[in-house]
């Protein structure tokens, strides 16, 4: 395309820069402020250059010693939910990509419909059942719930990726006498690795950050990091901003780095999962 005249180009750059400020500056403020002395946190204008202190992190360690076990809870739940989602939706995605029957189509349509239901309503009937089964406050419950809400999207993504793999690859394996399982594990999945990664991102980010199920279904053992950050914000004695920022920074940095690294797959997954229906 021919270059636009310079005033137009300048305007475009300025607007893009503005959008970057809008999305990145609040995050930057949290991270920077976590290294500031409490009395410097509300300075105006906020200083960019200052002597960093780790006091807030030390205080987080002493005042909220449980936070680190909450982080490990988040980690366990995230890994579990991601693994479960990837395994079950790879299998289902393969079948939906390669075979068709009325029953399969009906079940695929069912998958799309349940995606429309608001998750919060299932807390009502699950609450007594979960208590009865002694599943309340366990990692396994959160893993099952998080996986459930993403198997549909992930299956859809896997189906789209597997559809692009030529069936001839599998035929060669069939001639060599490979079983369905061998074909799937040795032939299809290695080629669909990108699809698996794309399908994993969404459930991974969701599980690491989820708030409302964790708020309702965990009390102590399985409590995740976002719930505790919420508690820090809601303390009656006034919010300790420095400590809060330290906790928020620890929680957000790994996942932020991850999302930035996988951005291409994120776009591919979104396209495969939602746009193509």
């Amino acid at each position, binding site marked *: *395309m021919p270059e636009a005249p310079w005033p137009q180009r300048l305007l*475009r750059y300025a*607007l*893009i820069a503005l959008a*970057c400020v809008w*999305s990145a500056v*609040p*995050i930057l*403020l*949290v991270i920077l*402020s976590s290294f500031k002395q409490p009395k410097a946190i*509300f300075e105006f*204008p906020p200083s960019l250059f200052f002597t960093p202190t780790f006091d807030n992190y030390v205080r987080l360690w002493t005042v909220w010693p449980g936070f680190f076990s909450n982080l490990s809870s988040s980690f366990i739940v995230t890994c579990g939910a991601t693994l479960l989602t990837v395994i*079950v*939706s790879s299998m*289902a995605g*393969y079948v939906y990509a390669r*075979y068709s*029957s009325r029953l*399969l*189509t009906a079940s*695929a349509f*069912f*998958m*799309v419909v349940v995606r*429309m*239901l*608001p998750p*919060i*309503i*299932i*807390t*009502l*009937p699950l*609450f007594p059942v979960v208590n009865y089964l002694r599943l309340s406050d366990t990692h396994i419950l959160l893993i099952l719930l998080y*996986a*459930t809400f993403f198997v*549909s999207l992930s*299956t859809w993504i896997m189906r789209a990726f597997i559809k692009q793999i030529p069936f001839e690859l599998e035929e060669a394996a069939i001639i060599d006498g490979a079983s*369905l399982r061998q074909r799937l594990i040795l032939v299809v999945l290695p080629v669909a690795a990108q699809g698996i990664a794309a399908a994993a991102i969404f459930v991974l*980010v969701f599980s690491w*950050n989820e*708030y*409302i199920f964790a708020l309702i279904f965990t009390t102590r053992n399985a409590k995740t990091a*976002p719930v505790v950050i*919420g508690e820090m*914000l809601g303390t009656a004695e006034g919010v300790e901003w420095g400590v*809060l*920022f330290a906790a*928020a920074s620890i*929680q*957000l940095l790994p996942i932020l780095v991850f*999302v*930035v690294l996988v951005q291409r797959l*994120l776009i591919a997954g*979104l*396209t495969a999962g*939602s*746009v193509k*229906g």
Partner: protein
Amino acid sequence: MGAVRLAHYGMVAPVQVLLLAFIFVPSLYVVWLSLHQSTYGQIPVFVGFENYAAITADPVFWRAFWNTFLVVNLVVYGELILGFGLAMLMSGPLPGKRYVIALLIAPYAITEVTTVVMWRYMLEPDVGMINYALNGLGLGQLAWWQSRFQALGVASVLAIWQHLPFTFLVLYASITTIPTELREAARVDGATVWSEFRFVILPLVMPALLIALLFRYITAMRLFSEIWLLTGGGPARLTEVLAVYLYRQAFSYHDFGAASATGWMMLLLSLTIAIPYLWHIHRQMFKNA
């Protein structure tokens, strides 16, 4: 590729079992619960539609309903306009594009809880930088902790900030699939920027735009944390949205019947919005079957 065998159904089964056990059956159970009076340590008593009558007679419910209506529309259309604009801006060549996109999608990685944390920090009474700056300019401050509509406005801004990456990415992915020749041809034929947008880009992006719109309508209706952690629904339950109303009925007042009736209404509302999309998908799927 052969006929569908039992093994294939077996491979689909885990996904379907999860959906049935944790979404479908509980959703039906919600209907049953909504027709009963039920709280802790009490056997549910069948009351017919009394719970529905009770919540539709409750002014707090209707306030929550209209609050949700307002926020959802602000969020969805705000995002759509900003997301489309941003996708258009980003569609040409740009130095360091990969890094710019990384900055733009960063909010997607942030938990809703931290989103509330950062915006509350900027909006703290008197000392938060936005209120401090507004005060300094003599404009007074945003009193979201005491004004219903300011609180809802702030919650909407939070939700837009959080979800703009989704809308942006969907539209951006769609715009980048438009062949450059098509846009060039329009210009050679003397199309203005506006008519290029209106007659070339918009029609081609429309399917993606409708899907983004629908998904955001359905997910925006679930809005909970932004209000819950910002105002708790207060002052005096003025700023509750449907999800917060449901949560309060269930977990503060232990009235599971009323909460279920609210939940079932949210579900019907979601499905009603989704009908055109579901209809379309249904036709497409069964045409190929």
